[in-house]
């Protein structure tokens, strides 16, 4: 009884609490306050109520069906018992204990209905972006609109799909739309007003350094930044990845490396100035965006402790860079089947195998256009020291087109198809790049689900066949699974309410929350009196 009293008071008071920058800085626990869980991009939680031993007792606690949803991509944000989930141009606030809707926001007149990967929180607000590039700030308690500010023109091809990243007083938003010709960027907007503070483009303007790595189409070069970045508070540096150059599959009009496409860029938080860049796939012709967010860890590489950034790339290789300087340290094969490059040289450039570009007849290349991995959430577990990455062993046909490139006409300079293949969750030791274990999945290679790992020693992952699965983080042993009955296109998170750990994941159409099984207690009908 005392416990119930205490909890109810805590809840009454705490749901009103402001989210401070420090709350986000200290990473997940009871709450899950930013897209990748922590600024370091670990998707790791110190919660340990659910363990290797008891995970077999997990049971669904509630389901919320998002109206008219399909292919939801949202990674939930949870703060003090309220969960925020997005769909295209909409936000749903749910009671994280019961799954009941608290409020919803829907911008019916936003142009287009692309995917949306999630929200961000600060103070008493929740932020998200619409498909047509409005940053919307809503009151967390009531869903009331505080502001809705446009930050980019959808008539120039830019759309918005990623969850904003909030650092201190800034909301950082990247651009999407790189397959139809855009000029990719990240912009910092004031969390208070939505005013623009800085904007950094990832295709240089004519005459700027790097512009000589492009041809005539430089104004539409692509390099979209369609996944949230990560942040190192000590170095005051943002790490963001960029997408493919445009047109995707025909490169005759863009001779050169096409900087800063398919790259990792380090940006100063205060100014947006690029501190360094590293290009994984110079002059990409296979649509291998660098998306998969940069994971920041301090570890021993070659016998020396280093601040590094890990990056599992769509091009088939797993990279380790020094995150202070951008120095290339190592690249190894992420997947087994790679046919376009025999390796990565000492400077970090791919050693190309000739004849692997798309052709008018079609060219069979591995990995496929979907890539060796993609934007599915990776997780780094500081206890096991392992990085858990969804990988895809798949090849595909890449074809080029002789058609004159036209931006914003859905023209990508050819096309690509993929066939068969297998999704495999791999646990990689960043110290050695060796695989500690792997968990092969069944399915059609169509999933976009990622991972979360916990101090309880469990890795949760959506599989390629519509199951949420719990694995032993040490050895990949299966502990529990639940058939969610549809394709999974988002990553799980974990949070705590009433002292109970939950694991939540958004499926194609609904939000599910799981916890350890407890028998239901009878709830007496409330004593209700009515006033006329």
């Amino acid at each position, binding site marked *: 009884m005392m416990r119930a009293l205490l909890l109810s008071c805590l809840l*009454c008071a705490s749901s009103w609490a402001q989210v401070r920058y420090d709350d986000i800085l200290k990473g997940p626990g009871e709450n899950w306050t930013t897209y990748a869980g922590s600024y370091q991009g670990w998707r790791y939680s110190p919660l340990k109520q659910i363990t290797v031993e008891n995970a077999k007792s997990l049971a669904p606690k509630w389901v919320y069906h998002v109206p008219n949803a399909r292919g939801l991509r949202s990674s939930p944000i949870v703060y003090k018992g309220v969960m925020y989930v997005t769909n295209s141009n909409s936000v749903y606030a749910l009671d994280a204990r019961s799954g009941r809707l608290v409020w919803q926001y829907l911008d019916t007149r936003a142009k287009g209905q692309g995917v949306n990967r999630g929200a961000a929180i600060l103070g008493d607000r929740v932020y998200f972006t619409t498909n047509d590039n409005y940053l919307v700030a809503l009151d967390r308690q*009531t869903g*009331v609109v505080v502001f809705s500010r446009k930050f980019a023109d959808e008539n120039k091809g830019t759309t918005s799909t990623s969850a904003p990243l909030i650092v201190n007083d800034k909301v950082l938003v990247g651009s999407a739309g790189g397959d139809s010709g855009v000029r990719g960027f990240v912009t910092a907007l004031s969390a208070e007003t939505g005013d623009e503070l800085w904007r950094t483009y990832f295709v240089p303007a004519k005459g700027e350094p790097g512009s000589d790595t492009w041809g005539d189409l430089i104004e539409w070069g692509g390099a979209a930044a369609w996944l949230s970045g990560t942040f190192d508070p000590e170095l005051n540096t943002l790490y963001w990845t960029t997408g493919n150059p445009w047109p995707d599959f025909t490169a005759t009009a863009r001779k050169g490396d096409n900087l800063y496409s398919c790259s990792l860029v380090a940006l100063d938080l205060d100014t947006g100035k690029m501190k360094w860049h590293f290009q994984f796939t110079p002059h990409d012709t296979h649509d291998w965006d660098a998306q998969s967010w940069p994971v920041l860890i301090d570890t021993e590489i070659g016998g020396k402790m280093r601040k590094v950034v890990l990056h599992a790339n769509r091009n088939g290789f797993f990279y380790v860079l020094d995150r202070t300087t951008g120095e290339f340290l190592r690249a190894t094969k992420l997947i087994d089947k790679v046919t376009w490059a025999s390796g990565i040289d000492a400077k970090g450039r791919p050693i190309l195998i000739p004849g692997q570009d798309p052709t008018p007849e079609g060219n069979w290349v591995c990995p496929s256009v979907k890539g060796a991995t993609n934007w599915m959430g990776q997780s780094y577990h500081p206890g096991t020291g392992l990085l858990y990455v969804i990988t895809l062993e798949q090849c595909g046909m890449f074809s080029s087109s002789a058609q004159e490139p036209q931006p914003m006409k859905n023209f990508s300079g050819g096309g690509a198809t993929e066939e068969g293949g297998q999704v495999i969750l791999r646990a990689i030791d960043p110290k050695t790049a060796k695989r500690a274990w792997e968990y092969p999945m069944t399915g059609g290679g169509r999933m976009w689900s990622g991972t979360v790992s916990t101090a309880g020693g469990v890795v949760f992952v959506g599989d390629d066949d519509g199951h949420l699965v719990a694995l032993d983080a040490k050895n990949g042993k299966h502990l529990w699974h639940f058939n969610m009955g549809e394709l999974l296109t988002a990553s799980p998170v974990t949070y705590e309410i009433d002292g109970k750990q939950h694991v939540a994941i958004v499926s194609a159409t609904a939000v599910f929350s799981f916890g350890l099984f407890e028998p239901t207690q009878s709830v007496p009908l409330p*004593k209700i009196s009515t006033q006329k």
Partner: protein
Amino acid sequence: MSLPTLILVAALLLQHGGYLGDSKNAAIGNPEAIAAGAKLYATSCAGCHGPDGSGGRGPNLVQRAAWHPLSDEGIFNAIRNGLPGADMPPTKLDDDQTWKLVAFIHAISGPASENKVPGDPEAGKQIFWGSKAGCSNCHSIRGQGGRMGPDLTNIGGSRPLGVIKQSVLQPSKDLSFLGNEAVTVTLTNGKVIQGLARNRSNYSLQVVDHKGALHLISMTEVKALDISQKSPMPADFGARLSAQEMEDLLAYLSRQSLRPPETSSSKGKEK
């Protein structure tokens, strides 16, 4: 606007994007056709359906999608043939005139921000934020104002004038949405919370209190629950405001939109 009405309209808007079965007839969305349709409406229809379509002897037309969704063709046929068994007679209007009338009805059942609305929005602004009506004590627009009532930032951009008007004048009319009432909750620990329930069930309750703070409550923590059958919104605005003031207030609310009104030319570009 009462909360239940908001929820109703929100539910309605989920399926919005254009109403069910929008016609491709050229009159739909054409300002000249709508203006011509308005004249026909005033002489042929307003007597029963009200000057703004909000109903009278005949049904409310602006809530058509809520109660019985009709396609543009369905409206056309109802005007042409009448409704047998009801008081709605057939008409002798030609195709062109009938489509103009459909275009007008289509327009007034769309967002108020996209239609011509009588009244002075500037004068209405003073009424909204002033003490005589006191709207902003409970409602907010772009982050300013109270948090207990529904947000009105996009009220004109999402609802027809007739719906807004009814919600101001008769806030309790649609109070049939069990679970979203004004409540006083007494917890087992003696604490009392007053506010608006959001989506109450037999097992859990969320309440936004008078300060705009959200409380998540399990029913096992509830000792007593007192529920009002009336909207917390005052029902006396019809008497409290003059006809002119009401028109001005509605004009101001009609202009509240997250997005600039779509012009017919920009609509044309999308097609």
